[in-house]
């Protein structure tokens, strides 16, 4: 295998391990430790994509998180992963990636025609071009934009990978393992602080991996290896690579995404693909370094134009040459370091320096090595379409306005350096107002906002000595504040080459008669002319300019473009950059996969699943379950080939005829205890509670302060100062919070305690005419006769040795009881009921039959108490006390709640007695009325009445009281049904309530 651009004696990739992968279907080889970018460059591949707007060819621009171009789509185990940066994704055996943003192929892209239709894509093209005519939007513009836009396609399949969340606490979180990160971590860890050091790349060391320096008589690489090894061995330190701290949130909560398996052919057993760390740090040191700034010139987006620091890193870390005829275009000394590296590897670069006569150690070294340097020179324009072939260069006047001696020079890459931009994103996210530093033409963090400090080049310190000294000091200072230890490590001596000042030049003027596109934002194709246009059109605020032109948006968030954009705006506006200000940095710093954010909380795991103690019995007896809040409840028990409809009818009928048993464990249960419990309930419920005797239950309705029904249920007085409250399954948690609110904040004087006992009791509702006979056999020692245990009575019983509580309450409208035992005995209770109930033709019934029974009785439930109804609407006004005050009472006298035609619950029966009315249907007078057809109300619940064997529904309609007997229509536009109906009483079965008292 020959790789034309691979160097033999340099780099950190593992030459012993060859790895093959495919790019756009073609097979390539690389080495373990390569990224897609380094491996492709080694193979001479530079064309990897097309730009967003003009579909211009795209290559590689950077070597890490700043990469604006090389966004690829990864396919692994038949799963797609879009938005992969080729500069970060490590290769593994069998990796498949392909280009995005191009159709039909990266080499021949039809969208590139946009490049010749530039008039359609000026700044704000989203807002202008696609506006008119409006009818064009759906048919022409939108499909066009959809096909052309985006960075890859998300998989529509279920993601089988596992993602985890982890919560961690530490004294000090350090973001980045460059020289400042390593030094501060070392100083703090040695001083006893609990440290987390996060590095987004696979290798630790940051700039030390590529710079020619000496620390404590070691090379930068040796020193960083030594420090990392020692840190890893310390029990108070967590060191993580491939881990990006992407968000700085409130109260020093930072979030980090750790890519555990992305670089492997497949996720290893017991390991997740990615892990999201929520880190609460006492202090944070931001050592995220800096990113090289581009210089702006004609066609500066051509593949082969890249950051000079990237070119150096490709050589030193990956042993890869980005070109063999490099042109280095720089306004500072950094370009020289890259040139020197080329030279050392046998390649002759040409340096164009915008400065007139710089002098420094590095410039001298370059000269001594025989590198050709042209001072006061610039690149006017890159030439070549899919790859740089040559460049027009020129001499630039001292005032940087005029070009002369334009000539064409052959080259295969242009390495640009426009000085450095500190990565202040995390500090800015923390709330730190940055300030513009004239010396480096960039923003650096100002006063700490949260507990954060920024160090190293992220703080504008560009010499290693300054960086290391500051980092050791800060690491000690911050750890000392937390641990109060005084172990100071000695600082190593630092040897580095001295640099000279950079030139503030950043944008090459256009030569006369030329209109080269000069790009500021490479990912979004924002050129100098776009910003000029936006300002001409009146956009002034940088935030508006950003949104209008899309400068600095998209996945790279303008890491390479922001400052040049600001420079341009301030130049045109005759302002200085700090007057223009910068746009707000928001998390995430780099894209985070949705899977990592969601973590394990997907599908069934998005919420806990609660099961009653009788769950296994239900399962064994063919229960079909339904989600009821977080509970799983049997919906019906399937016999043979029964449908839901048939089974629920059978079960409901059996309750009306014989006896049924229903698992009601899920009902919310709250113990209310204390000498003032009665008074408290009297204030919470709308009806009177002071005179309820011990051993009796009462149905109650509670309101919110705005008069809307919050919940209903029965509450039983167990003893003098002890009440057992039940709530609906759905509202259990809210009701408890509600009660606590009033007890703790509104009426702290009441001596009452509340506690949830939902999980302590297993409940079975036994309903039907045979229920008393069954109960007699279950509790032979108790008197459960109508006199011994009357309707709404309560007593304790002995269920074959198990203490039980028996409540004579009914939701089904039949003679019914509810038996509660401690949860552990739930299954025993259930099996006994079924066993003893056999002779009474007992059948278990699920929620569907339960609904049927309550609907035809006109008992309200969640579908009527839907957060919009007052007691009157649900025909519960009889329970509203006129004498006493209670929560929400004052609201009931609001005019809209007292108007005579207020909505009220009614029953609805189809005239043909066969057509079921879809829930949610509207009740209207005239189905043919002009739209919008005035609706009287809606159908809240529907069932098949087992009593009358025809459909029956409940509805809440305007002036319901006076509508009974009327013939109206139920309309369901969704189901395309119009059903003639008659309005009847909501109490369809046993309106006098004789059965429950029988």
């Amino acid at each position, binding site marked *: 295998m020959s790789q034309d651009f691979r160097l033999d004696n340099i780099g950190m990739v593992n030459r012993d391990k060859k790895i093959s992968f495919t790019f756009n279907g073609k097979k390539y080889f690389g080495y373990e430790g390569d990224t897609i970018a380094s491996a492709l460059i080694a193979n001479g591949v530079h064309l990897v994509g097309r730009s967003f707007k003009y579909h211009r060819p795209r290559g590689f621009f950077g070597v890490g998180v700043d990469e604006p171009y090389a966004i690829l789509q990864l396919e692994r185990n038949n799963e797609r992963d879009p938005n992969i940066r080729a500069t970060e994704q490590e290769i593994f055996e069998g990796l498949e990636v392909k280009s995005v943003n191009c159709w039909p192929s990266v080499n021949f892209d039809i969208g590139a025609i946009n490049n010749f239709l530039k008039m359609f894509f000026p700044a704000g093209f989203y807002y202008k071009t696609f506006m008119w005519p409006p009818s064009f939007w759906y048919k022409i513009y939108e499909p066009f934009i959809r096909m052309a836009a985006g960075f890859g396609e998300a998989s529509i399949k279920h993601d089988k990978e596992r993602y985890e969340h982890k*919560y961690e606490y530490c004294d000090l979180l350090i973001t980045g393992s460059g020289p400042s990160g390593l030094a501060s971590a070392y100083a703090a860890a040695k001083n006893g602080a609990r440290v987390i050091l996060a590095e987004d790349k696979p290798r630790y060391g940051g700039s030390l991996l590529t710079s020619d320096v000496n620390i404590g008589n070691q090379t930068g690489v040796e020193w960083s290896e030594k420090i990392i090894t020692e840190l890893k061995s310390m029990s108070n330190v967590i060191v993580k690579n491939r881990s990006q701290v992407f968000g700085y*949130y*409130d*109260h*020093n*909560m930072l979030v980090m995404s750790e890519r555990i398996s992305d670089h492997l052919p497949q996720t290893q057993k017991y390991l997740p693909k990615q892990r999201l760390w*929520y880190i*609460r740090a006492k202090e944070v040191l931001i050592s995220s370094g800096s990113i090289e700034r581009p210089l702006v010139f004609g066609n500066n987006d051509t593949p082969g134009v890249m950051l000079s620091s990237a070119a150096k890193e490709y050589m030193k870390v990956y042993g890869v040459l980005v070109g063999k005829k490099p042109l280095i275009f720089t306004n500072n000394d950094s370009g020289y370091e890259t040139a020197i590296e080329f030279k050392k590897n046998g390649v002759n670069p040409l340096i164009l320096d915008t400065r007139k006569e710089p002098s420094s150690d590095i410039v001298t070294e370059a000269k001594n090595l025989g590198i050709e340097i042209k001072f006061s020179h610039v690149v006017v324009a890159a030439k070549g379409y899919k790859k740089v072939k040559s460049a027009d260069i020129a001499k630039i006047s001292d005032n940087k306005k005029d070009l002369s001696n334009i000539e064409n020079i052959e080259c295969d890459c242009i390495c640009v350096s426009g000085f450095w931009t500190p990565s202040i994103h995390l500090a800015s996210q923390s*709330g730190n107002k940055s300030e513009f530093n004239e010396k480096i033409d960039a923003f650096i963090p100002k006063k700490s906002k949260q507990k954060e400090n920024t160090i190293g080049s992220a703080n504008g310190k560009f010499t290693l000595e300054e960086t290391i000294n500051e980092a050791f000091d800060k690491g000690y200072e911050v750890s000392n504040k937390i641990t109060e230890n005084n172990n100071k490590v000695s600082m190593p001596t630092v040897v580095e080459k001295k640099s000279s000042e950079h030139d503030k030049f950043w944008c090459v003027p256009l030569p006369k008669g030329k209109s080269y596109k000069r790009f500021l934002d490479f990912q979004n194709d924002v050129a100098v002319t776009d910003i000029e246009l936006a300002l001409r059109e009146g956009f002034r605020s940088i935030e508006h300019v950003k949104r209008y032109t899309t400068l600095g948006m998209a996945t790279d968030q303008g890491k390479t473009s922001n400052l040049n954009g600001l420079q341009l705006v301030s130049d045109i506006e005759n302002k200085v950059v700090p007057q223009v200000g910068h746009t707000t940095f928001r998390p995430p710093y780099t894209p985070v996969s949705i899977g990592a954010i969601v973590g394990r909380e997907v599908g069934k795991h998005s919420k806990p699943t609660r099961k009653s103690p009788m769950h296994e019995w239900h399962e064994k007896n063919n229960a079909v379950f339904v989600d009821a809040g977080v509970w799983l409840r049997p919906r019906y028990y399937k016999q043979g080939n029964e449908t839901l409809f048939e089974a629920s009818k059978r079960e409901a009928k059996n309750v009306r005829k014989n006896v049924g048993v229903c698992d009601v464990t899920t009902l919310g249960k709250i113990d209310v205890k204390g000498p003032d419990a009665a008074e408290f309930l009297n*204030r919470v419920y709308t009806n009177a509670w002071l005179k309820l005797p011990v051993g009796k239950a009462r149905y109650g309705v509670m309101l919110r*302060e*705005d008069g809307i029904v919050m919940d209903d249920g029965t509450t039983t007085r167990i003893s003098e100062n002890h009440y057992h409250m039940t709530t609906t399954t759905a509202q259990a*948690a809210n009701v408890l*919070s509600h009660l*606590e*609110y009033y007890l*703790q*904040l*509104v009426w*702290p004087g009441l001596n009452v305690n509340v506690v949830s006992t939902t999980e302590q009791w297993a409940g079975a509702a036994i309903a039907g005419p045979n229920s008393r006979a069954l109960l007699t056999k279950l509790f032979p020692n108790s008197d459960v006769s109508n006199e011994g245990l009357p309707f709404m009575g309560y007593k304790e019983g002995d269920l074959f040795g198990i203490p039980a509580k028996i409540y004579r309450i009914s939701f089904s409208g039949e003679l019914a009881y509810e038996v509660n035992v401690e949860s552990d005995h739930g299954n025993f209770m259930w099996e006994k009921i079924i066993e003893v109930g056999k002779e009474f033709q007992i059948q278990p019934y699920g929620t569907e039959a339960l609904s049927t029974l309550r609907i035809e009785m006109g008992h309200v439930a969640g579908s009527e108490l839907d957060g919009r109804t007052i007691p009157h609407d649900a025909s519960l006004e009889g329970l509203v006390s006129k004498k*006493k*005050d209670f929560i929400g009472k*004052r*609201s009931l006298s*609001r005019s809209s709640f007292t108007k005579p035609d207020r909505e009220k619950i009614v029953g609805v029966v189809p005239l043909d007695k066969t057509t079921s009315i879809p829930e949610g249907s509207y009740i209207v007078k005239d189905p043919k009325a002009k739209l919008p057809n005035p609706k009287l109300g809606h159908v809240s619940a529907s069932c098949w009445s087992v009593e009358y064997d025809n459909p029956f529904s409940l509805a809440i309609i305007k002036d319901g009281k006076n509508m009974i007997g009327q013939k109206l229509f139920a309309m369901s536009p969704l189901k395309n049904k119009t059903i003639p109906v008659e309005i009847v009483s909501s109490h369809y079965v046993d309106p006098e309530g004789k059965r429950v008292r029988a």
Partner: protein
Amino acid sequence: MLYIFCPHCGSRSQNEFAYGGDATVKRPELNKEVSDQEWDNFVYLRKSPRGKHLELWHHISGCRQWIKVERDTSTHEIFKTYKADELTE
């Protein structure tokens, strides 16, 4: 995610708490004549200040106590937290 000091439990993450709104709202006393306007103010009208705000949080996944938190609504800075029975006139 905020870090809230519960006076009963210590510093805990926001996801253990539920928000409860303005802590200075006083419910009109029971059985007292209240004008429509007064009642509306109590039920519906809330200030939404930028800056310091005394508000209720319910430590639902902890001690289940309602607490009062003095927080800056624009910076999320928490100045002080109080038990339910503190700061009552």
